[in-house]
């Protein structure tokens, strides 16, 4: 058995480090765990004015439903309020945004990374400026023409706007990934018998996968988590999940709706966990390595 550096530390320090880690973990995870727990209670318990411990003991939940936990919040949100429709919309929007962004991003990023001209650099700088702007500044400019041309409220409009907001980032990120791939690889492929596009498809893209997946995930998160654009540009009947949650909160006069929001928040978060777990290897290699060295 070899002793590592960590083993040689005094016991008190190790204890303090462990305690800090546990504290930090609770701090980070508690809000979500609390929401998860509360989503199975009734509003009277989770938002109790009398005693916050009711959320833990579930006094009212037991009185109202006959069991310490209830799925009423989920039933109300998914079935009664048709949250699944919002879920479906989210799937359509995110998949479209990711596919379109990555298509333009890989092609454009490759072109920019191999361009000998100086304007490629300035294009990227401009892209960065647009990426830095808050999305809402763009939305206010879109609203009037969208109303006038009768484009407002539809999913495709939202998809296009989200792609526009996301594209600078994907271009920027993919360009830097492509730059890490030696030019010799393209040239090798072209001498070996590929056209420029074949070299891109057969040689460059296979090397790029970690980069494409990482960029795709970030694009997905942008579209999935977006509130500013979706809430402004989609009609009430056509909302994606995040603005739909907000619409539950907006009508607190009706009892129980706030619990719908809590249940939907949990529903929205779960897929993200699964996704990150599933792709964690590619994400890590994409974030650290950049690409394979030649």
């Amino acid at each position, binding site marked *: 058995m070899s002793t590592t550096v960590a083993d040689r530390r005094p016991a008190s320090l190790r204890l303090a480090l462990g305690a800090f880690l546990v504290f930090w973990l609770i701090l980070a995870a508690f809000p979500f765990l609390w929401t998860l727990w509360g989503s199975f209670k009734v509003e009277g318990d989770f938002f109790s004015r009398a005693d916050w411990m009711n959320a833990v003991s579930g006094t009212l939940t037991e009185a109202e439903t006959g069991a310490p936990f209830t799925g009423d919040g989920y039933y109300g949100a998914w079935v009664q309020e048709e949250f699944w429709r919002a879920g479906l919309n989210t799937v359509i929007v995110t998949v479209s945004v990711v596919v379109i962004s990555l298509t333009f991003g890989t092609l454009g990023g490759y072109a920019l990374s191999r361009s000998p001209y100086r304007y490629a650099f300035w294009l990227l700088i401009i892209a960065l400026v647009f990426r830095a702007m808050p999305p809402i500044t763009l939305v206010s400019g879109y609203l009037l023409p969208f109303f006038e041309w009768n484009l407002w409220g539809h999913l495709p409009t939202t998809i296009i706007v989200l792609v526009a907001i996301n594209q600078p980032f994907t271009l920027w990120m993919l360009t830097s990934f492509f730059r890490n791939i*030696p030019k*010799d*690889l393209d*040239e*090798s*492929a*072209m*001498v*070996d*018998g*590929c*056209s420029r596009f*074949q070299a891109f498809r*057969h*040689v460059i893209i*296979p*090397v790029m996968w970690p980069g494409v997946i990482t960029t795709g995930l970030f694009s997905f998160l942008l579209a999935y988590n977006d509130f500013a654009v979706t809430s402004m540009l989609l009609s009430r009947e056509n909302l994606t999940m995040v603005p739909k949650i907000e619409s539950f909160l907006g009508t607190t006069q009706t009892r129980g709706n706030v619990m719908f929001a809590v249940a939907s928040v949990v529903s929205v978060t779960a897929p993200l966990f699964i996704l990150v777990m599933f792709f964690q290897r590619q994400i890590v290699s994409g974030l650290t390595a950049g690409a*394979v*060295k*030649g």
Partner: protein
Amino acid sequence: MADIQLQNLSKRWGTFVGVQTMNLHIADGEFLVLLGPSGCGKTTTMRMIAGLEDTTEGDILIGGARVNDLEPKDRDIAMVFQSYGLYPTMTVYENIRFPLKVRGIPQAEHHERVMRASATVELDDFLQRKPAALSGGQRQRVALARAIVRKPKVFLMDEPLSNLDAKLRVSTRAQIKNLHHELKTTTIYVTHDQIEAMTLADRVVVMNKGAVQQVGTPLDIYDRPANTFVAGFIGSPAMNLIEGRMTGGVFEADRVRIPGFGGIADGPVTLGFRAEDARIADTGEIAAPVYSMELLGDASMATVQAGGALVAIKAAKDFMAQIGQPIAAHVPADICHLFDAATGQRIERP
């Protein structure tokens, strides 16, 4: 198999000249080495032949057909890159097979041709590995195998040995020489290493600052350098160059006096001679104190300061002299080369 002609080939980026009006005929089956210091235009020339760089002026003909406007893939060439350019996601087998696959050569032939190419460069044990799991020398051989698998008209090699260690470089150099003997494919080889040029080439093209300095066999270039650049670039050590004055057939510079140049006009000239042609003597044309002594193994090298330059003279390996000790060297006129002091061009002796 094909010959290559470069006609008035030039490459410029804005005002920067990469290659200046180059004319060259490379015979079918010839092994031609482009030699020069970095930035001399040798790689640019090769990349223009490959089609990876556009030409600014002039024509490139392969097998008599103008290829200027052809894509690299349509020029029927194979290239070995300095960094090898292996495809990291494919196995060695797939790397070698790739040119066959993208060129639509019938599937049935692939296996046999890949195996033959890999056997030629002794890669059979590594076919299922990824390039990342190979040593530098093995990667280099994969690049070679990928080039020969398709029997192209022309091989282009861009400093293929510069990433290998010294020992491997010698053995791979021999392998390339042997491969060329076997395949007899026209080969253009770019290097800045004159030993590689000397050992591999049928003919050497010495380049500097985008311009061809001299074209000739290795022996030609060594024995009759066309100008002071070639003289100073070829040979190890390079030719000694001393600036001095010719008066009545006698060359004179500080601590140097060499008679015997009848028929050469008076005036400033540059004189050159190789260290191994001169020898240490009791009295001689050069008499100067020792600047440094180096033991090379089979011989030793005495350096003296004469004529405003450091002059190397090869001596027997048991020759010993202290730094500062005066010595003399016998440098007869017939081992000397003369160059114009202003232009650096070789002056032919009558």
